[in-house]
């Protein structure tokens, strides 16, 4: 089955991005396709490559990027939400791309299920 995922919150402050990541990993492990993860609202902060968690903490920015690379997941950061919050190409982590909100609607159309994680 083809899943799309929406992540509304940044890393650390809310569990939403963690939950979405664990869900995506489990879906792929079960043979499903995760077609796209769309990052909206504070979710755009998941794409900040300067993020440097403590050594014993998880690094969600890297984990998402790795997942994208290994499983061909399209990580899309909403351009409008990102501009506001200062997430630009200069600090965009590998694996992410910045695009329009239409990519979220498209994900809703093209996926069998759109799964939403937020606060």
């Amino acid at each position, binding site marked *: 089955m083809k899943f799309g995922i929406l992540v509304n919150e940044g890393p650390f402050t809310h569990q939403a991005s963690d939950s979405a990541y664990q869900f995506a990993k489990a879906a792929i492990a079960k043979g499903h396709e995760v077609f796209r993860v769309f990052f*909206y609202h504070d979710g755009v902060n998941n794409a900040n490559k300067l993020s440097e968690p403590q050594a014993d903490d998880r690094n969600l920015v890297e984990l998402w990027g790795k997942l994208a690379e290994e499983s061909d997941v399209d990580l899309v950061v909403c351009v409008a939400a990102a501009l506001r919050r200062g997430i630009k190409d200069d600090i965009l982590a590998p694996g992410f791309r910045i695009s329009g909100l239409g990519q979220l609607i498209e994900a809703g159309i093209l996926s069998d299920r759109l799964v939403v994680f937020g606060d």
Partner: protein
Amino acid sequence: MMDEDDFNPEVVKRFLFVNRKAPYGTVYALESLETVLISAAFDQDVSVVFMDDGVFQLKKGQDTAGINMKNFSPTFRALDGYDVEKLYVEKESLEARGLTEDDLVVDVEILSTDELREIMAAQDVVISA
């Protein structure tokens, strides 16, 4: 990857946008409205629900000058021009907040909880924030 402008899907899905949060205290109301506006370009079957504190988004007379934020409530009136016409408000949520239809900035359909439940159950994609 297809470009937004070229994208012309044959499939029409029922999209529901659920608004349960008050405006200004958080950005969800404003940014979710942006999503609704974009969705209009995709020729899908779009519905928007306001319930719980989300009904406050539609309150008439918003004046944000004193908090230096942008008053986005007039945009709800523009939805009609984007062919987003299915705006639903839960009656119970409205009443619990001491509001009536006259308090709202835009024409909506006021639904009982039972009616709203049926509409929500009939959707293909539900986007909430």
